[in-house]
């Protein structure tokens, strides 16, 4: 209570796979330290104890896809002093935002035999379309070390060290030879936000953009490079329409290659 006023943490889930909040439980070496530094007041995936709001810090996972959630996010905002969205669903609408390019009615009837039982919105949208967001952490999934960094920064009232440059810089840092230049493997690294540590290229695979667009991405130039490597327009559309399909630069570049 009042005598040991630790900051109170809440974790909220909207439309998502649970992977980003699981990142917190995946901090095996840091979990008990985090639990010592904050009061975990509301984290249903980990505890049946629910402490009433307001909360000092809310982590929000998932996108808004139902009328109910479009209202619930406002309550979460009212209860939260500082609100951080975690992961591609919360920051860009996630893979489920592929519905935004189609008629959702066709989607429902493709999956459910009784479509009338399903209540859903026609679009999957990021949290920032609905309420003010204080900070965004990118990734599908987020990087757990970035999550610990954000928690630590907020607890210590400092700015978190989260870079917004491209995956290319991370490849240079870890000494990975450019797979697009050296091997001709199509790669979204030049336009993708850093944070993963450039995992894919170190596994001989092109980046597929799961951290979304970096600041000021030149997607047009990258698309020209991909075309030069023999990537077809439909495949460029698919590359842009992944886990961050509705992040503005990726959405626009995808549409430019769709006839």
């Amino acid at each position, binding site marked *: 209570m009042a005598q040991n006023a630790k900051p109170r943490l809440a974790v909220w*889930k*909207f*439309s*998502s*796979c*649970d*992977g*980003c*909040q*699981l*990142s917190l*439980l*995946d901090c*095996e*070496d840091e*979990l*008990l330290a985090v*639990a010592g530094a904050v009061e*975990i007041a509301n984290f*249903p*995936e*980990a*505890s*049946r*104890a629910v402490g009433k709001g307001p909360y000092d810090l809310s982590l929000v996972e998932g996108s808004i*896809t*139902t009328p*109910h*959630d479009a209202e619930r996010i406002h309550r979460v905002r009212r209860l939260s002093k500082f609100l951080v969205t975690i992961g591609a669903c919360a920051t860009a609408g*996630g*893979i*489920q935002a592929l*519905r935004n390019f*189609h008629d*959702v009615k*066709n*989607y*429902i009837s*493709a*999956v*459910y*035999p*009784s479509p009338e*039982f*399903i209540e*859903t919105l026609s679009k999957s949208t990021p949290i920032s379309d609905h309420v003010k967001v204080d900070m965004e952490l990118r990734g*599908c*999934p987020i990087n*757990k070390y970035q999550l610990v960094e954000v928690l630590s920064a907020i607890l210590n009232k400092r700015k978190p060290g989260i870079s917004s440059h491209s995956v290319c810089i991370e490849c240079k840092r870890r000494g990975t030879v450019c797979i697009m230049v050296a091997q001709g493997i199509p790669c979204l690294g030049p336009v993708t936000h850093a944070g993963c540590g450039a*995992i*894919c290229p170190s*596994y*001989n*695979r092109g980046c*597929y953009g*799961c951290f979304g667009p970096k600041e000021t991405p030149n997607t047009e130039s990258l698309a020209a490079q991909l075309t030069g490597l023999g990537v077809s327009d439909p*495949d460029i559309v*698919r590359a842009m329409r*992944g*886990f961050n399909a509705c992040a503005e630069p990726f959405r626009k570049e995808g549409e430019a290659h769709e006839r």
Partner: protein
Amino acid sequence: MSAKTIKVDYLARVEGEGGIHIRIKGREVADVRLTIFEPPRFFEALLRGRNYSEAPDITARICGICPVAYQMSSVQAMENALGITVDGPLRALRRLLYCGEWIESHALHVYLLHAPDFLGYEDAIQIARDHPAVVQRALQLKKIGNEIVAALGGREIHPINVRVGGFYRVPAKSELTPMLDRLQWARDASVETVRWAATLPFPEFEPDYEFVALRHPDEYPINEGRIVSSTGLDIAVHQYEEHFFEEHAKHSNALRSVHKDHGSYHVGPLARYNLNFDRLPPVAQAAAREAGLTNVCRNPFKSIIVRGVELVQVCDEAVRLIQEYTMPGKAAVPVVPHAGTGYGCTEAPRGILYHRYRLDEQGIITEAKIVPPTSQNQKQIESDLRQFVASRIDLPDEKLTWQCEQVVRNYDPCISCATHFLKLHIERD
């Protein structure tokens, strides 16, 4: 006449959003509903028009807890459609990757999600205050599982290294052998987990389940096998939809599977154990016997012991797979896309996970069907709740509510998967 409702609006310690709603009329259970309000994400629809090669990455996003399961079932189905066989060290690496996910997922469920119910705590953080060594053991076990997934897959959640035909990059043996010491520790810690779990208090409850699991000629079922059941079903994976179908209930955003002419059925650790005890290695069988289990276990609360036995099995298997590993010359079998239909079924930590895809001549997906374990268990969970409440109708609401939550958590339900969870609501009227 006394009437009441027991409800849990948002079930904790499960993956995803759902609830329980039970209505009691006098001394009878009038209605039981597992309500799933996890929003639908329409994976089967959004896969249409995507390239066959994208299925492992896209379907992984159905579940952050068992992405490897989705990757394994999807590549198996694609390879089936394209007529490719992945064997030798590549198959062994996939099995090792899957072992990593099982270790991570089972350690998470046994200690962090399930154990608090038996010990009367709200969560594992509270357990850590009184029994720090137990929670430390859990976290270290979980960590070694994650380490395997990260070593082979690039990262713990949504690994990036799995592709149709094999991997993007295969590790040298020297990248894997440093994990051996800790895996041997993990095998011992898993035996200790079984001993510890056997000391927990278990309610008397043994429903007459039909168990459904994979069965393989010489392995404990993880990544391959025929679909068998305790009532004598024995079919190939491609026959799945001839025997099982999905129904859609109004209170749910998930589809519930039914075995034709049989009804509800049970998939997961208990089903695998009952149908495959003879495939467990001696160290796992010995741990089970020491814990007082025979080769039959029908008490779903004891699934916590069985998950421990499976932890012994996958740690033991991971050690063997690393010891026997030789680096293959190629990271993947070449793939030439063509039209076809393919079927895949593997054992996710929570039970069988079925995928079917139809491809056009360019290898573009024209149809996808995915049946996750939790939608197969959903009807069985409701049936368990009904039976369980009926025999304990006089318990105080608070106690009954918590025990009902436990009945659901016995299944380690993954609501995110099933919707593609949990509120408990007991209503008496």
